[in-house]
C-alpha cells in the first residue's frame, strides 16, 4: 500500500487555516503596493487569531477602496462613498462595538474629499484600524496628483508637484490620535507587526502606508516610487509584536535596548532601538521626526505616537455592555406605562 501524501494545513490559535482569511482575486495593476497591504491584512488577522466573521472591512472609493474584495472573504464589508468611510464606520461601531473594524482608504479619500471625516473620527477616537494606502496620485481617474504628493516629486506624466503636501501622520498627532504609524508596503515585516498592534489597540489606529502606484507614480523622479522609498526609508525602531496568547517570557530577548508596550488585548508591541530611542508617548518628538525626515527628503517609518489611555468612543457614550444590535424589543421600546408617565408629564 502506497503512502498517501498528506497535505499539512497550518492552523492559527483558533484552529482556522489561512484560507479562511483570504478574499477574491485582485483586479489591481500587477505589482500594486495595495495588494501587498491586502496580504498583510490577511496575515495579521490570521496571526492574531481573529474570528473572520467578527471583522468588518470598510472602505471609501478609489483603487485602495476596492481592495476589501480581495481579503477576508468571510467578513462583511461596506464599500461606501468617496471619503465618507469614517462616518459609516462610526455609526456601525457604536451599534456593534464588539466587531473589529478595519477601514482601508487612499490619499484621495483621506487627504482630500474625506479629510474632515478622518479628522472627526480621530477626534472621537473611534475604535478602528484606519489604513491609508498612500501613493500620491489618483489611480482610478488615471494619475492626477493627490494632496499627499511631495514637493519636488514628479509622476510619470505631467509637471513636478509644487504644492505643499498634507502629512496625515502630523495631522493625526496634532489631533491627539491614539495610535499613529507610518510604513511602506514593501516593508512586510514592519507593516505586519504594526497592523497586528493596530488591531490589538482599542481606539483609532492610523497606519499611513506608502504604497507605490506602479502605473502612474513609480518613475525615478517620484518620491513615492519603490526604488526611492526603499533607499530613503528612515526606520524609527524595529517593530515586533507578541500576541497575548504567546507567553512573553518564551520570546527571545533582544540583544540591544528595547521597549515593550502593552496593548489593550494584552498583546505586546516590542520596539527595538536601531540608532537612537524614540519615545512614542512624546508628540513633539514624533513631529520633529516627521519634520526632520521631510527636510532630508526621507520617509520616516515605525510607530510615531501612541496613547493607550484615551477612552474610545463606545466608552465615552456609556453604552451598555450588550451591543445595541443584539437588543430586542424589551429594551428598545419603552412600556405603555412609560408612555402614560410621559403624557402625564406633558400635561403638567
Amino acid at each position, binding site marked *: 500500500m502506497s503512502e498517501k501524501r498528506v497535505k499539512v494545513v497550518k492552523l492559527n490559535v483558533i484552529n482556522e487555516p489561512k484560507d479562511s482569511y483570504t478574499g477574491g482575486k485582485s483586479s489591481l495593476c500587477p505589482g500594486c503596493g495595495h495588494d501587498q497591504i491586502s496580504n498583510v491584512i490577511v496575515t495579521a488577522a490570521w496571526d492574531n487569531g481573529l474570528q473572520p466573521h467578527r471583522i468588518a472591512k470598510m472602505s471609501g472609493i478609489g483603487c485602495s477602496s476596492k481592495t476589501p474584495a480581495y481579503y477576508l472573504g468571510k467578513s462583511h464589508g461596506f464599500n461606501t462613498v468617496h471619503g465618507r468611510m469614517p462616518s459609516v464606520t462610526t*455609526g456601525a461601531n457604536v451599534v456593534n462595538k464588539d466587531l473589529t473594524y478595519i477601514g482601508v482608504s487612499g490619499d484621495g479619500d483621506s487627504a482630500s474629499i474625506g479629510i474632515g471625516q478622518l479628522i472627526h473620527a480621530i477626534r472621537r477616537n473611534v475604535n478602528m484600524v484606519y489604513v491609508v494606502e498612500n501613493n500620491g496620485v489618483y489611480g482610478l481617474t488615471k494619475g492626477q496628483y493627490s494632496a499627499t504628493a511631495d514637493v519636488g516629486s514628479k509622476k510619470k506624466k505631467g509637471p513636478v508637484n509644487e504644492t505643499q503636501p498634507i502629512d496625515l501622520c502630523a495631522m493625526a498627532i496634532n489631533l491627539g490620535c491614539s495610535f499613529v504609524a507610518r510604513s511602506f508596503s514593501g516593508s512586510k515585516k514592519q507593516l505586519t507587526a504594526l497592523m497586528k498592534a493596530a488591531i490589538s489597540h482599542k481606539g483609532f489606529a492610523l497606519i499611513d502606508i506608502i504604497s507605490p502606484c506602479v502605473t502612474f507614480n513609480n518613475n525615478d523622479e517620484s518620491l513615492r516610487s519603490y526604488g526611492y522609498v526603499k533607499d530613503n526609508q528612515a526606520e524609527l525602531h524595529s517593530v515586533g509584536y507578541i500576541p497575548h496568547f504567546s507567553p512573553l517570557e518564551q520570546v527571545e530577548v533582544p540583544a540591544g535596548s528595547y521597549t515593550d508596550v502593552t496593548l489593550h488585548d494584552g498583546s505586546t508591541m516590542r520596539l527595538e532601538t536601531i540608532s537612537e530611542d524614540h519615545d512614542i508617548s512624546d508628540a513633539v518628538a514624533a513631529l520633529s521626526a516627521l519634520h526632520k525626515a521631510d527636510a532630508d527628503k526621507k520617509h520616516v517609518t515605525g510607530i510615531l505616537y501612541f496613547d493607550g489611555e484615551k477612552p474610545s468612543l463606545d466608552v465615552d457614550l456609556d453604552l451598555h455592555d450588550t451591543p445595541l444590535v443584539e437588543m430586542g424589543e424589551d429594551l428598545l421600546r419603552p412600556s405603555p406605562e412609560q408612555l402614560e408617565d410621559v403624557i402625564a408629564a406633558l400635561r403638567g
Partner: protein
Amino acid sequence: MDQVVNDFTINIATANGTGSQSANLILLQTLFDMGIPVSGKNLFPSNISGLPTWYIVRLSEKGYQAPGDRTHIQILVNPATWEEDLASLEPGTVVIWNMDSKMPMEREDVISYPVPMTKIARKLNPKLARMIANVVYVGVLAELLGMDQEVLEAAISKQFGGKAKAIELNGEAARLGRAYFAEELTKSDNYAVESREIEEGGFFIEGNEAIALGSVFGGIQMLGWYPITPSSSVAEGIISWLPKLRTHEGKATYAVIQAEDELAAAGMIIGAGWAGARGLTATSGPGISLMQEFIGLAYFAEVPCVFWDVNRVGPSTGLPTRTQQGDLTMVYESSHGDTKHIVFIPGTVEECFEFGWKVFDASEKYQTPVFGFSDLDLGMNKWACRGFEYPDESIDRGKVVLTQEQMDSIENYGRYRDVDGDGIPYRTLPGSGLDPILYRGTGHDEDGTYSEKPDVYYKLMQRLGRKIDGARDYLPAPIIKEDEEQELGVIFYGSMENTIDEIEDIVEENSGKKISTCRIRALPLHSEVEAFMEKHDKIIVVEINRDAQLYGIMRKEYPLHLLSKMLSVAYSDGMPPRGRLYAERILEVLEEAEI
C-alpha cells in the same frame, strides 16, 4: 355693540431674546386651560437677540388653527416695527401699546390703550424690567378680555415650572398689568373671552417633540445629527427623552452623535443600519441637499435608515425660520440616477408621534431609506394634543436572517435575490458569519458581486422599483372626507391639515360648493388616492410651494383620463397657510375652469 366672544386674533409684536416667548405661551396656555379653542404661531427671525418677532394667537369657536385674516387686537412693544405694524391695522383694531417706548401713536381710527409697561415692570424689578414688561401686557389682556385670574396664575406656574421666584415675580407683573387697566383705562371695545367646557387631558406640544417621542418608542438605536433650524428640536427632544426612557442597568441602549456635518450624520445612520440597528437623522432641506449622495447609496445597497426633513423655506438658505412644503420632490426622488423613496407625511402632532415609530418599521421592512416630512409650522409651533396611542404593532425588523437554520430554509439565498416575489430580499448582518458580502454602491448581481452586465443592472433596477411600489398600500392611507355630490375634491397634505376646514368653509360660503377632501399621508401614493380621483369630477391639489410639487408627482404617475381632472393651487410666502389666501385661489381656479 355686540360682544365678540372667543373669535378674534391677537398679534403681539416684540423683539426676540426679550422673554416675550414666555409671556406669549402663558397667554396661550391660559386661554387653552379655559377651554377656548386657541392656536399660537411664532414668527421668529433667524437671530438670537434683538430682531422683530411676532406671535399670533387666534381664538376660534370653530376651532380654526390657521392664523386669521386680520388682526383684531395688536400689542405694540417693539419700536423697530412699530410704524409698519400700526399702519397695517384695519380701522377699529384694538391697540395695546407701550407708552414707555417713546413711539408715536398717530392713528385716530383705532381703539387705543396706552400702558406704561416698562415703568410698571421697572418698579417691580429694575434689572429684569425688559423681561417682565411682556407679562404686563398679558395682565392687561387678561383684564380687557375677562380672563380667569386663577387659570392665569396656574399657567404662569406651569411656564416657570417650580421656580418660585420667577413665578412670584411674573405673577405680580400680571396682576399689576391687570390693575393698571382696571384703574386707569376704560374698556371701549367689544372683545371678550368666556370659559368653555374643558376637554380633559389635553396639552400643548410641538410637532418636533412628538416626532422625538415617537422615535424613542420606535426603538431608535443611533441618532446622528447636525444642528439646523427648524429640525434641531427633533434631535434635542430625542436626546432629552432617551436617558429617561431607554436606560438599562444604568447604561445606554442607544448612541447619539452630533456629527461634523449633515454628510457625516447620514453616513453614521447608514453605518448603523448596515450593522443591523435603527438609525435616524433629523434635518431640513439644506441638510437633505447635502445628504443626497449617501441617500442613493442606502437606496442602492438597500440599507435601512430614517431621515426626518422638517421643511423650511428654500431655495438655498432661503427663509430659515419660515415654513414651506418645498422639499417634497427632493425627498421623493432623492439622489442621482433613478430613485424613489418612501415618505411619511404627518399632518397633526398625534401623527408625528405615530409616524415617528412607524418609519423605522417601514425602513427595515423595505430595507431602504425612509423619510419623514414635516415643516416648521407643524414642527415648531405648539399644538393642542389629546394624547398619544401606544404602538399597536410589535417592532418589525424585516427579513433579517439571524441563524443558519433560517438560512437553510431559504431556497437559493442571495443578498439581492427576490426569493419571495415582493422585491424585498433577505439580508444578513455583519458579525453573524452568515453569507457575508461586501456591500457596495456599484452595480451588483443577486449575490452582491460587482457586475456591469446590462441584464443584471436592468433587473436590479426593476426590482428596486417594484419593491418601493409595493409599499403603497402598506403605508398610511389617506384621510378622506367625502361630500355626497362628489363634484369637487381637494387633495392636500401635511400641515395644511390645520387650515383645510377654514378653506372649505370659505369656498362654500363664496361659491355654494361643498368639497370632498383627501389628505395624503405618504408617498408613494396609496391606491385610495386614485379611487378618490376617479370618483370626483374635478380635483384640486393644494400645497404650500411654488412649483406644485405633489401635483407634479401625481401627473407623472396617474393615467391620462385622471390628468384632465387635475387642477393646482400652489402658493407659498413663508407664512403658515392662511385660509382665505388659499380659498380665494381655489375660487379663482374654479372660475377659470368654468366650474
